[in-house]
């Protein structure tokens, strides 16, 4: 089903759900639960937390169903609710946050040129390699190692597709700060993938 057709189906289900049709709401849950669960799991790294966040998210959505006017897609709305729940949970964990270290990016010479050349250009077979479980693990580990503020922004923007404005609403950070973190996170992850490819090409 195309994105447009899926949105239209959501809209129709939403109307029925707002009129009290519980089966229509359940169909909306079925359509969006994996994305919500995925977001929660990526943000919290806990299956138990992700399951609870998914429950809380859809319960909140149900309780506020009549307030939702359909200005945004149902998927975006429920995504924002999930991101808020996940962030609240992270804050409540009271885990001592390590100081956010400088993220690793490319190395430059004194004149500002890239120090290491030739670079691996793995962009062309990236799609194919995405199915590689080992690469998936490397990406997961690299994402886990990002400082929390950077990881949140990267996941919300690049993986979950929220806009800068939505991320700002969720995190309370300014858009320039969000962009800066996103860029640093992408550089660090690019570096990690690059390491993987270089190691792979060396047969290590």
């Amino acid at each position, binding site marked *: 089903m195309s994105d447009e057709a899926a949105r239209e189906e959501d809209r129709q289900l939403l109307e029925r759900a707002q009129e009290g049709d519980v089966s229509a709401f359940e169909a909306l849950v079925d359509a969006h639960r*994996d994305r919500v669960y995925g977001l929660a799991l990526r943000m919290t790294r806990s299956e138990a937390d992700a399951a609870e966040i998914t429950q809380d998210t859809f319960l909140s959505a149900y309780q506020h169903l009549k307030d939702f006017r359909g200005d945004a897609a149902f998927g975006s709305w429920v995504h924002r609710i999930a991101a808020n729940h996940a962030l609240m949970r992270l804050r409540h964990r009271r885990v001592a946050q390590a100081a956010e270290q400088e993220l690793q990016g490319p190395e430059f010479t004194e004149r500002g040129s890239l120090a290491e050349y030739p670079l691996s*250009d*793995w962009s*062309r077979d990236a799609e194919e390699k995405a199915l590689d479980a080992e690469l998936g693990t490397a990406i997961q580990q690299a994402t886990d190692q990002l400082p929390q503020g950077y990881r949140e922004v990267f996941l919300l923007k690049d993986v979950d597709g929220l806009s800068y404005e939505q991320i700002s609403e969720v995190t309370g950070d300014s858009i320039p700060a969000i962009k800066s973190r996103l860029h640093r996170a992408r550089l660090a992850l*690019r570096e990690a993938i690059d390491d993987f490819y270089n190691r792979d090409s060396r047969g290590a």
Partner: protein
Amino acid sequence: MKRDGALGIFEKDEGAPQPAEVRMYNCKDSINLLLEFLEGNMSPEEAQHLKEHLRGCSPCVDFLRTYKATSGLCKKALAAKMPKEVSEKLTEYLRNKIKSTS
């Protein structure tokens, strides 16, 4: 010469006369500006300086390609599906909650 239209660079002005005093960007400047460049949020002047650098810098073009590919690759790698038993619990939980609130 049109080297890489897909990246939105090298599309025009190849060989065009340069202003007398153009501050040339180096790799570090270019990489710091990649996000704004890819989102089309740079001033025309900055974008022009960046394109000038990219025209003559293969490492930066390779870097730009892999930077662009990073998001999609991570998105695929980090996709998660809810386990069946968790999904069943979710349905049961919501049904009970909805029943108790209606």
